């Protein structure tokens, strides 16, 4: 079962796994069409839910190795890197977004 790893400011520049959760359909409906008070109450239920969870050292090593093959800039300039990692720790696809001072972020795709 593959999963998506992320390296970003949010992950403190440590590779972590994205937990792809979403709101329940009922809560999503409130966020789309509810009153401001209902939306605030519903949002409060999720605002502290973690989006990223820890991954294994082997996964981290594999992601770092792959990142080094496509991006040689400062990790501090990385806005977000999303890599898909397979069960055998191979990286199959992904993207590196970085900004080294330009107006728009630059992107590298594996």
């Amino acid at each position, binding site marked *: 079962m593959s999963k998506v790893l992320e390296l*970003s400011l949010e992950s403190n520049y440590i590779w972590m796994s994205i937990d*792809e*959760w*979403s709101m329940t359909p009922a809560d999503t409906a409130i966020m789309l069409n509810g009153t401001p008070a209902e939306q605030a109450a519903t*949002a409060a239920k999720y605002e502290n839910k973690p989006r990223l969870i820890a991954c294994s050292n082997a996964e981290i090593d594999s992601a770092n190795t792959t990142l080094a093959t496509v991006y040689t800039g400062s990790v501090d300039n990385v806005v*977000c890197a999303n890599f898909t990692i397979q069960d055998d720790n191979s990286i199959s696809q992904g993207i590196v977004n970085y900004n080294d001072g330009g107006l728009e972020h630059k992107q590298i795709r*594996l």
Partner: protein
Amino acid sequence: MATDLSGLYISQSFQNLVQRSASGAFNILATATGTEFIPVSASYAISASYALTTELQVSASYAVSASYALSSSQADNSNTSISASHALNADVAVSASYALSSSQADNSNTSISASHALNSDSALTSISSSHALNADVAISSSHAVNSDSAISSSHALNADNAISSSYAVTASYAENSVGGTQLAGENYIYVSGSGTEAQNATELTAALAVGVAATPNGLAKSTTNRFTVVVAPGNYDFTAADLDWNTDYVDFRSLTGEKDVYFSNATYTFQLNTNDAKITGIDTGTKAFKVATNLANVIVNNCKGGNDSFGTNQTISGTYIDCEAGGTSFAGNGGTASGTFINCKSPAQNLCFGALFGASTGVFENCSVDLNFSGYSTAQGSYTRCSGLNEFLRNGLGVSGRAYNCIAVGNNNYGQAGPTNILGQVLNCITGTAGTGVTADLFPGVGAGGKLVNSIDGLFTVNNIVR
């Protein structure tokens, strides 16, 4: 026991025509002079050299209108014939060398107008048959499988040559077929969309199968050796499952380039599930245009879907251009919008582009949603000429966030909902113009390292703050 019949009328002496054996059993018929009599309309005949209108005959050399014929050399209008060399209007013919208008012909060399033809050598052989299987030639059959040549069949599968069939799969040659895949080349196949909506879907599914199996120019598909399914405008009704677009280097292009390939089923829709595909011109109506997670190399152009389209809680890292969707789209329900989004919009909608506690980290150019553009998530992407009404980047810009030439004329924009200080860059942007139902709004504060430059708030104050 021959009898002298001279001087007698035929009616008086008919019973005497029967020649009997020594034991008295029925044997043969004869004329008055002893010549053998050829029977007409006999109910049962065995080994007769000539039989006309018999109900049952075995091994006759010539039979017309027999109800049952076995091993006859020629049978016309018989109900059943087996191994006849010539069968005309037989209901069932097995192994006949020639069959005309039979209801079923198996292993016949030639059959015309048979309702069922199996393994016939020539069905010019099979003309106007309702079902032809493994026939060398099939003309006007309603169903033809593995035939070498099919003309005017309603369904042809693996035919070498198909003309005017309503449905053809894997035909090496197809002309004027309805819903057929007659137009194809090394790197493409054309879907005509000229059948019913369900037939169109079947045709499209078959075309995808051709693309999946294709080796264009004799080589494996690759980024530079792609296969394109060109799809004509129309309704495509997938009645049992989503269309799963699941193979790299197989592209989907609407014929016109417009969003006019409609997925018309109320439930089933299009699902993009491969990392490297270019998709153009799909409209899934109110249903989601589904995209699997982290397909970084897909390019989706000029497509439209309902809520939860182009990812909802997935990581959306590909390129999306001129796409339109409903609410919670573009990774809008806890997803990660890390790809490129150009001219993408959700008119009168809410919560898109990495909204609802997801992540907005990609490149956004000229994109819009009325409410909650990246709402409830920290904006870390680059946003150029993007727009909204209320709650545009409502939870503020992180240190990587870049907003240039953006317009959000309502309230609670750029982090003002919190408020949350701007930690990234906001340049040449507008917020909170007072109007009907909208009060004049201000920008939030600017945190360390943040920049709010040449940006106009609802009081028409030009803000220039660099920390």
